[in-house]
């Protein structure tokens, strides 16, 4: 069992090698190889879940991997999984598996496409497993390359701009983060210098550094350095402008991964690195974080309401939903933190559903206009013509709208329960975000699905077996975890509780 | 008895003259001569210093080397100038301005 993380991490790489061996004529073979790889990886993640010991707070001792890598720098190839990264792991395994299915119709240089997807999967797992700062950073950066090409080659008409913008934004954030990492490296000596866990617990209070000739508190300044790196990834309000471009231009599978997994890496970074290492600063600035969160909630919702491109609408809606996660983390209470992690998972499933459904309709109509620039309706009457599509779309939509009984509600409720006592005003404002959230989704739904179908719409075929096949698991997840979230909550409970206790010491 | 300062002042004058020549003259050969002046100012310094302050031969040796290398450099420089002349039929320094920054717009 101890090698399970390695298996999860390296199976996609093996898959890449296999795919590179297949001649590029033989497209189906490549597709099946990719599918098999992701399937195996997903099975491994499920094994991990089965063998997960929910009573352990912090890293699971059975799965720790620690191999010296760069001895002179005390850099280790050290992996571990705990209750915070476990849900993300399952999510990643599942979403990649479904994305391979969903991108069956990709026909442009198939070989490179699937190889890059698998590379992306491996790097994402690496980010979630890495317990060594250097390793974490390497995976964090390497992840940019496949994204760059996936968006830039297989994307929409304005893809290059989006790809470059995404790349530069994230790179800027992470290079600042790198300085923080190195500063941490020099503030601890010995073999633990790059060990993420060894830095936790607020060791750096009272330490100062001089930058631009003035003295700064170590934990504050480097909290902000980390904050920048992660906040750009989330993205929190002022750093969000890359997101609409990237989502709109990216191919379906990639936007699913982007929204479903990559955004979570930002918040994961907060929970794994920024908060435990600089708890004092995190507590001091929690108000700012919460305010940024609520701004993202409302700002994203308002912007989403004005969009005529349905994919852009969903993109802004994920800005809004990640704002809830930020609020939940800022609450620093048991229910708030748990709610945040649960929201990370639930947003992953629900928004993935939305993007996949948009991809389905895009394959038929080759446009994404709710209302075309010339004012005519892009769709309309889908509900009458495509019943199956409609039903699944409704599930996804109401899940991301936060309808009780579907997954979105519980996490949001927990977040609100958590944050109410600390930031009442912010809560009151943020609750209004729910209202707007319902508004734009229902309005979009009405404009797309109600009314009499036009001839163009009548030419579409309803979802085929493959599409239904990759939607069903997500529907199941959304409904089951909406009614009974404990399977996810139980694995995260102990670890998040530990984090909350740590934060509580500094309040 | 000439003092060290005199030598230094002369060499400084030489240096500045060389620089001024390099900046002002438009003929490449003249500019090469300016370089020679600069080098000679340095050589003069070496010799002067080794005569007055430091009682060793390093300065003399150094100045010898300077002379030799200045010759070599002048030879190469003139060769390049000739090459340039063969192509452009001019040795006016402002013709040497095709390689420059152009802004991509």
């Amino acid at each position: 069992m101890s090698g399970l993380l390695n298996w999860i991490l390296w199976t996609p790489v093996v898959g890449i090698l296999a795919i590179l061996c297949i001649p590029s004529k033989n497209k189906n073979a490549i597709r099946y190889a990719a599918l098999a790889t992701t399937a195996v990886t997903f099975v491994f993640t499920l094994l991990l879940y089965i063998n997960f010991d929910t009573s352990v707070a912090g890293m699971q001792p059975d799965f720790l991997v620690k191999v010296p890598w760069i001895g002179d720098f005390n850099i280790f190839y050290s992996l571990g999984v705990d209750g915070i990264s476990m849900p993300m792991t399952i999510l990643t395994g599942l979403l990649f598996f479904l994305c391979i299915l969903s991108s069956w119709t990709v026909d442009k240089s198939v070989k490179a496409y699937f190889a890059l997807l698998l590379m992306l999967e491996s790097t994402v797992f690496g980010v979630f497993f890495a317990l060594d700062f250097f390793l974490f950073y390497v995976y964090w950066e390497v992840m940019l390359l496949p994204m760059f090409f996936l968006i830039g080659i297989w994307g929409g008409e304005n893809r290059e701009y989006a790809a470059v913008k995404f790349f530069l934004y994230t790179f800027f954030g992470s290079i600042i983060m790198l300085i923080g990492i190195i500063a941490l490296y020099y503030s601890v000596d010995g073999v633990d210098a790059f060990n993420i866990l060894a830095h936790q617990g607020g060791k750096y209070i009272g330490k100062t550094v001089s930058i631009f000739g003035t003295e700064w508190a170590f934990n504050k300044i480097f909290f902000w350095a980390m904050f920048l790196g992660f906040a750009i990834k989330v993205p929190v309000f002022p750093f969000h402008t890359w997101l609409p471009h990237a989502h709109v231009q990216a191919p379906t599978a990639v936007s699913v991964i982007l929204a479903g997994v990559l955004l979570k890496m930002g918040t994961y970074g907060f929970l794994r690195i920024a908060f435990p290492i600089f708890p004092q600063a995190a507590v001091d600035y929690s108000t700012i974080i919460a305010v940024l969160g609520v701004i993202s909630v409302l700002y994203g919702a308002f912007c989403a309401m004005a969009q005529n491109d349905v994919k852009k609408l969903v993109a802004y809606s994920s800005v809004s939903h990640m704002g809830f996660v930020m609020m939940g983390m800022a609450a620093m209470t048991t229910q708030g933190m748990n709610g945040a992690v649960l929201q990370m998972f639930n947003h992953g499933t629900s928004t993935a559903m939305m993007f996949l459904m948009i991809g389905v309709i895009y394959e038929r109509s080759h446009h994404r206009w709710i209302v075309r620039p010339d004012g005519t309706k892009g769709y309309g009457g889908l509900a009458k013509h495509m019943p199956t599509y409609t039903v699944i779309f409704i599930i996804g939509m109401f899940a991301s709208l936060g309808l009780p009984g579907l997954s979105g509600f519980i996490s949001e409720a927990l977040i609100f329960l958590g944050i109410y006592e600390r930031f009442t005003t912010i809560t009151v404002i943020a609750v209004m975000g729910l209202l707007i959230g319902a508004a734009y989704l229902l309005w979009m739904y009405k404009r797309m699905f109600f009314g009499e179908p036009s001839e163009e719409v009548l030419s579409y075929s309803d979802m085929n077996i493959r599409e239904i096949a990759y939607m069903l698991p997500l529907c199941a997840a959304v409904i089951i975890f909406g009614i009974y979230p404990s399977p996810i909550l139980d694995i995260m409970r102990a670890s998040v509780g530990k984090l909350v206790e740590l934060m509580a010491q500094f309040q | 008895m000439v003092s060290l300062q005199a030598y230094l002042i002369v060499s400084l004058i030489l240096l500045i003259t060389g620089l001024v020549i390099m900046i002002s003259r438009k003929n490449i050969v003249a500019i090469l001569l300016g370089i020679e002046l600069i080098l000679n100012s340095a050589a003069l310094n070496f010799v002067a210093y080794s005569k007055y302050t430091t009682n060793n031969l390093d300065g003399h040796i150094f100045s010898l080397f300077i002379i030799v290398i200045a010759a070599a450099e002048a030879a190469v420089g003139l060769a390049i100038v000739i090459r340039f002349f063969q192509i452009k039929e001019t040795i006016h320094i402002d013709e040497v301005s095709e390689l420059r920054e152009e802004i991509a717009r």
Partner: protein
Amino acid sequence: MTTNLLANLSFYIPEMIVIVTMMSLLFMETAYANNERRRTFVYVTGVIGMLLCLFSLFKNLGVEAQGIFANAVVVDSFSTMMKITMVIGTLGTFYISHKSIDIYDELKSEYLIMAVGVLIGGMLLASSNNMLTLYLGVETLSILSYVMTSLKRRDNLSSEAAIKYALYGGVTAGIMLFGMSHLYGMFGSIQFGPIIEGIKGLESFNVAAVISLLLFFVGIGYKIACFPFHMWSPDVYQGSPVPVTAFFSIVPKIAGIAVVARVTYSFFGTETVNTHIWNSLIALIAALTMTVGNLSALNQKSVKRMLAFSSIGHVGLILMGVLTFGNNGMSAILFYTLIYTFMTLVAFFVTTMVVNRTGSDDAVYFRGLMKTHPILGMSFLIALFSLAGLPPFGGFVAKFNIISSAVGNGLYTLSIVAAINSVISLVYYLKLARSMVFDTADSEETIESYSLASRVYVIGMVIPIIFLGLFWNNIYHLYSSAKLYLN
């Protein structure tokens, strides 16, 4: 005395080998008729010489640091490692020159001669312990470089670049000499040792000494093309033939860096009254060099020019390492130079290929390279990302080492500047990568001079980039064990 000198010769074998190689190449040039056989023979000789030199350099690694030839020259592992990098670079450019059409066939052997000559100068410079040897090294480097620049005879740009180079080099050399002369006058010797003693002896801040040191620095700064003294380099790089550009951006720079590091560290390594001012000077120059280099590279049409500016940016980074030479800085510099060599070789090889096809190095001709020549495009891509400092490539590790040594010494400001600069640099690298991968090629036909050997070469150059990006422990360990001779 003589016996001592002869004994010292045993440490000087690498340089001897290079000199011998140069001589033999010269003889072949004159002796044989100008034909294909001769050219291959010349190349073989050159390569053999370089390999022998490498071998003997590796043998020299073990030698403990000491000054030879009456302390005029030192052998220490630092300079030896720098020399190894230089020789590798020279070897790499051999193949580029063999492929390039910028070097006319009848002049290829001349290119070799010049290159090896410059290498001699570089090695002398890297291990010079004496203002005279330093000057000799710089001049050997420079004079031959002027000739190399004008090697493309029938091209006016080439000779124009040569003129600029010559004039600029001349004036900087003169200024350096002027500074040297005053140092000599102040401290009474041209040996570094007494000068260092003198500087340590200064009990107060001494303007004259510092300014003459600055003048002294001008000569080297112009060689490594750091900020105020960099104006020549874009023009010269653009004007000169591609292999020469590649060579310039490797060997003279590395030699210059070696000597800057040596001077800075051995003069100001220990805390004296003048240390702070000098370090702040270097820091200022480093920051400005990075910023100006990268920002100027942002919108260049000519790829050679763009790479010139980017190399200026890299020099700025390396100067950060020079500042922190004492702890980790040295190893960081060594690592950076090595990786930098490989990346530059790959980049310039691809540029050569493109120039061979189109006769121009304009960025538009790189469009769709990924589709027409996958291996070439992929290698160039890796080189670019590595230059930008992205994991898992060597460039990232190099940059990481530099920044980490800077942060380790509390140079946060400088490292933030470096970080922002690496973002800026990513911008123009990405522009090239993007046009290479996403755009469609103008012409589908492959480059005729793009042979199997070229594939082998470029892959062979890319492998170290990746390998050193992943498993850099041993080489880093070796580098961190390097010693610098302090007299």
